[in-house]
């Protein structure tokens, strides 16, 4: 189906792991900042955004893996 540099499922896993790492870094960055920091609001919002994206990537992977019988 896809013209990707890796097989679709592997590329999907790689991107999901990358997004998960960004989400973890964003969460850790937020924890490190004090609430009075000018960056606190953005880092917290960005962490929430990345966690939500990652969770739905995982859900999407599970759904596609089931439909396409990868698992």
């Amino acid at each position, binding site marked *: *189906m*896809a*013209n*990707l540099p890796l097989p679709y499922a592997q*590329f*999907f896993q790689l*991107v*999901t792991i*990358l*997004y998960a790492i960004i989400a973890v870094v964003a969460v850790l960055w937020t924890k490190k900042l004090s609430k009075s920091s000018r960056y*606190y*609001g*953005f880092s*917290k*919002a960005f962490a*929430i*955004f*990345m966690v*939500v*994206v990652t969770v*739905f*990537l995982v859900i*999407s*992977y599970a*759904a*596609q893996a089931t439909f396409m019988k990868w698992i």
Partner: protein
Amino acid sequence: METMGKDGVKPGHLVVAGVFGGICAGAALFSIIIVPIPGLPGGSGFWIPAGLYFALTLWFGFWGALAGHIGTFIGMGPFFGFTFQVWADGALGDFFAPLINLAIFRATKADPELKTRRDQAIWVASVVISTCLASMWIHFVNYSFGTITFNLWKWGVVAYTIGDSAAVLIIGTLLLKTATKYFKTFPYYVKGLFS
């Protein structure tokens, strides 16, 4: 609609569009749960990125919609074998839909934090209206190019409206209710269209 805030457009707004466009691209590439309808390319499914760029547009105005457009243009584009017309058309529809939603929010002075029942009702109605209008336009272009038949146009509009609205109402609501109050403290939060 207010188009310029007192601070004006800053280079940071472009950075916001680029960064979130990149994030949306990965999501657009993979996170769709497709419900295939024979003869209807890219027209149906649970389109997860829609939830992202609708929320981004309520936070960052035009720049959020641009992020969604960049993401879907890259994510849908060269990898899935659609013709240029189909994916460029789809990505343009994904640019208009959140902007229509934003226009309704600005016109009604609704708050993206969705704290009140009024704001929640406006959110639900505006998502369905904007998604339906975008899907009509997207499938009209596909019909005009002879990609789909008129019978499929009707089913395309219904399927697209249901699939995108469901994704936006689940993911977008989650994002707006949890992250909006924090993004409001960000200097590049947009109160009008561009700034």
